[in-house]
């Protein structure tokens, strides 16, 4: 029956504020202000309140989600300048071990180790990957996949930095609230910081490198130095997450180089929708609580993450965030077909 009678259809129209301009919102009324601010402020406010409401184990899940969120944001920054990383665990692990080593061997206080590990980790990762920025796409991904695994084997075989036992008995955060709110505030700051970075002139160049690096080169911009700068920023963000987790668990072992820390941010970005920082953030907020539910599955967890990742890439190419954004910015009414 090809000629099935259709009585109703859906009509989708962009909301007025979206129709006026696509990205720059013209605020015309208090309603418009609310419309623009609500999706930005509400989730963040919710995130700030969560630690007050949740305690114990559930509080840990929030912290964990923010850590994965930082890694996903750092992945997204690299992806938006055309560097496809399979090795977020590298940045994460470098930060974790730097903070751990400074605490263990130099006995530096926590307000020194975390900032130094953040910047030092970013610089170290940028330095490590500097010869590789000449590669792009699949080739860059190959190298970033290899590095953390090789680092892990080096630590294992050489017995440096605590070897297989890891560095334990490190300094904890002075109090629980600082611990929780440090990571939440950092997550929110990085999310909005990177969002405004990528729309600035500097960020536009980074995005242009992903779109057409030859064109950027012919505009007289050194793309390799820009890529190294992007690596430094992304590396710093992920190293901060690593340094944080070291002090959070008071332990740094080579599990920080494990594939979990590479797959989970990637899956978060894929579920939330690649191409937007909010997507990566949303993805991690969805995926991490979900994966905590899978903790009982033990060894199968990684296999399930991978299943989710494959599913997201195949079935949700747009991502959840883009879908929600589209729905938020349009009316959908059912009208009669005449």
């Amino acid at each position, binding site marked *: 029956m090809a000629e099935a009678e259709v009585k109703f259809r859906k009509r989708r129209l962009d909301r007025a504020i979206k129709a006026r301009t696509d990205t720059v919102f013209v605020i015309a009324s208090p309603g418009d202000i609310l419309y623009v601010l609500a999706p930005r402020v509400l989730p963040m406010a919710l995130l700030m309140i969560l630690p007050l409401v949740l305690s114990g184990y559930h509080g840990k899940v929030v912290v964990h989600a923010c850590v994965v969120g930082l890694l996903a944001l750092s992945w997204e920054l690299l992806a938006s300048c055309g560097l*496809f990383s399979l090795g977020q665990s590298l940045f994460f692990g470098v930060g974790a071990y730097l903070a751990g080593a400074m605490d263990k061997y130099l006995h530096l206080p926590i307000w020194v180790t975390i900032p130094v590990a953040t910047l030092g980790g970013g610089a170290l990762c940028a330095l490590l990957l500097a010869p590789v920025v000449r*590669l792009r796409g699949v080739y860059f991904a190959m190298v970033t996949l290899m590095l953390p695994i*090789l680092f892990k084997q080096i630590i294992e075989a050489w017995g440096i930095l605590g070897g297989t036992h890891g560095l334990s008995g490190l300094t904890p955060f002075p109090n629980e609230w600082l611990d929780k709110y440090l990571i939440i505030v950092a997550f929110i700051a990085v999310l909005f910081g990177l969002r405004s970075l990528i729309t600035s002139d500097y960020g536009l160049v980074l995005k242009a490198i992903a779109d057409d690096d030859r064109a950027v080169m012919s505009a007289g911009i050194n793309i390799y130095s820009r890529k190294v700068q992007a690596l430094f920023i992304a590396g710093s963000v992920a190293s901060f997450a690593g340094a944080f987790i070291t002090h959070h668990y008071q332990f740094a072992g080579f599990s920080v180089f494990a594939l979990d820390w590479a797959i989970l941010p990637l899956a978060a970005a894929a579920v939330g929708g690649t191409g937007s920082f909010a997507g990566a953030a949303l993805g991690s907020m969805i995926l991490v609580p979900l994966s905590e539910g899978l903790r009982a599955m033990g060894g199968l967890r990684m296999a399930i993450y991978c299943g989710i990742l*494959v599913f997201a890439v195949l079935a949700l190419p747009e991502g959840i965030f883009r879908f929600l954004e589209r729905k938020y910015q349009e009316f959908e009414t059912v009208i009669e077909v005449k």
Partner: protein
Amino acid sequence: MWLIVYGIISSVILALYAVGFSLTYGVSGLPNFAHGALYILGGYVVWNLMNAAGLSMVAAAPLTVVACALLGFGLYWGLLLRVRGIPLSELVVTFAAGVALLELLTWSGFYGIRYSLPVFWDESFEIFGVVIDAQRIMVVATGVALVILLHLFVRHTRTGLAFRGLAQNERTALSVGIEADWIGSLAVAMGSGLAAVAAVVVLPLGMMEATIGYEVLIYALAVAIVGGLESTTGMILASFIIGFAQTAAARYIGPKWMIIVPLAAIVLVLVVRPSGLLGKFKELEERV
């Protein structure tokens, strides 16, 4: 002398790891990051065919190769087909599928002394004053045979030429009547089959466990990056460079230095020649 004989052996093992990956990616342009998982799955299937089904090695080995090839074929039609043409999605999908497979194998208890394969032919010889067992000779023979066959295949058969055509320009390949999906799935299947061949001859040399899959993938990638992907000669050259450097490092400096070798090789090659030692035609488009 010891260095030369064992250097050759470890180089050939590396070449065996890389040959299937290089066929699917270098020749047909499909990155199969499940390569390491398919390799170790080959070992798992052989072991089960021998111990659970009671087959002999001679019967189990070809069956395993066919099974892995079929799995590769299924991987293409089931997953890769939906993301064809988006290189990074192809990579993510195959990588995630590979990790899922490896983690499933680990979870099912695939490690430990129980899982070891018997050698085909248990004897040893003395060549130039170095004692060497028959299995290692077989590894070298298989490696040499595979590389020669592969070389002939991609240059002198219609299917082989179609593989290369697909990698060079998919649209042009389509316009001269090459079925992209069919050839692509054949390439993935052959690469997976070659991973199983490598597994069948190399794994009897040591113990089997699922984590070897990651190692195989890493070595295959290292060889591919150092050699330049589309070049068979480059792949062999890279295997020999990394293989000899590893053997020499293990003997003269200490086994723990072996790990540094592939990394150092990659960094050195990238600084000097970003397209790999013998890579040519993809230099502009993909790498630099």
